[in-house]
């Protein structure tokens, strides 16, 4: 997939005080883009604006294709099984019968969910299984752009590894253009091709770093340096 899949231009957003100021960035086709920044700087708001769940006060967002989003808190309906949760979007788009069953089964197994996982209600499933179900719920609609909000937060090492493997498999197979917002650099940086480093609130893009060709140690070093630089500049570090 070539070309720019998602472009954020000069976005400004305020909730009683400015949260995002003049933020511009883009996501190329087939790329995994990371967004990092200090806690509470506005990363999630930016992701929600990218998804179209929030409108910018100024600026614009251009999307070249369907967007799927996975929220940090899973947000699965507790009264439905994981299967029913994964199938939700398909039902809303009028897809039923064999096509629905096939898609739910295919995308669930793609993220590593078994039939017995899918028969569980969210309260009975582990954190990792719930996160995978939330990912499958977004993937069954076959989006061209995937947005992940803190996908590794709250998961144990085993669940994080398993989710990372599932994501790697999806990217290798489908080259899905993805934006990941995360403060867990050790989890994010091995996956990302590029990162944008945001300043503390109100968030601006402080730096854009191309990570391709760097080993993990170098990636960590470069992003940590950038974060330290912006924190010391803003006086919060």
């Amino acid at each position, binding site marked *: 997939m070539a070309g720019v899949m998602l472009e954020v231009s000069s976005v400004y957003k305020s909730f009683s005080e400015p949260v995002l100021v003049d933020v511009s960035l883009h996501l190329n086709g087939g790329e995994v883009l990371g967004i990092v920044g200090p806690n509470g700087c506005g990363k999630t708001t930016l992701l929600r604006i990218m998804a179209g*769940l929030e409108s910018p006060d100024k600026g614009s967002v251009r999307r070249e294709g369907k967007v799927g989003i996975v929220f940090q*808190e899973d947000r699965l309906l507790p*009264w439905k099984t994981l299967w029913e949760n994964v199938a*939700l979007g398909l039902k*809303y788009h009028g897809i039923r019968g064999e096509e629905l069953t096939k898609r739910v089964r295919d995308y669930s197994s793609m993220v590593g969910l078994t039939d017995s996982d899918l028969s569980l209600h969210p*309260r009975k499933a582990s954190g990792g299984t719930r996160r995978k179900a939330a990912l499958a719920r977004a993937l069954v*609609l076959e989006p061209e752009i995937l947005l992940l909000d803190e996908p590794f937060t709250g998961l144990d090492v085993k669940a994080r590894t398993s989710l990372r493997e599932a994501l790697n498999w999806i990217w290798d197979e489908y080259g899905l253009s993805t934006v990941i917002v995360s403060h867990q650099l050790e989890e994010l940086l091995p996956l990302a091709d590029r990162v944008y480093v945001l300043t503390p609130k109100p968030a601006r893009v402080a730096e854009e770093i191309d990570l391709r060709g760097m080993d993990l140690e170098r990636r960590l070093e470069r992003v940590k340096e950038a974060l330290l630089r912006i924190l010391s500049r803003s006086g919060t570090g």
Partner: protein
Amino acid sequence: MTRGGKEASRGHEIAFRAGRILASLFVLAIWISASATGMLPGPVEVVAYLLSMEPEEVAPQVLKTLYNSITGFSLSFLASMVLGLLSHRLPLIKGFSEALSEIFNSTSALVWSLVLVATLGVLSPLPPILVVAAVTLPHVLTATVSALSSADPGLLEAVRSVGAKPSDEFFEVILPSSVPLLASASRVGLGTALRISVVAEAFGSSGGVGYMIIRSYNLADASGVLAWSLVLIALVLGLDQLVLKPLERRARRWLE
């Protein structure tokens, strides 16, 4: 839980149960004291009266009262669901529902009974049902409107992000989210419905526990009044403890 914590919790439970037994003994003591003045029959006399009643005599009256209460409550529940759903979308209906609740809430069961009996006639089966509907409506409507606005905005956003339409949001998130609150409201509402239906039956009905209470009163049969009152208390408590409370508990687990 630690051992100390478990003991404290057990002590709390024992004290709570003792409080419940004390309340029953307190009511019984008041009754015995009142009967000592000779103005009321005592518990032994009333229980003897109760035991002398034939099941074929009691069952139709209990069923009639249950029918009036459940039908009236169902009407108010249905009206509340429709108004609650529309209030969720239309400010005009929200204002209408609020004002209707206030008016109905300020009107006593006695007034409703008299007006409906005068309008529909003593022999009509409708007044007890409509009185129950009118009296329970404000409580059920208020609970329904608040239950329908209690849905988690995060879940609403999640279903919206996968293409849910407003009707999907209502049936998939808003309605299921409100189940525990609706169950609690139904528990209170049905209890109220039973107590209200006997008032309405006393004024305009040819049957039911309320009718039997007023009939015994008109015949100066004090033991009959108290015996039928005990039937009503048993009915309210039985329905609450054996049916409504377990259902409410089950509904609470729905969202976990």
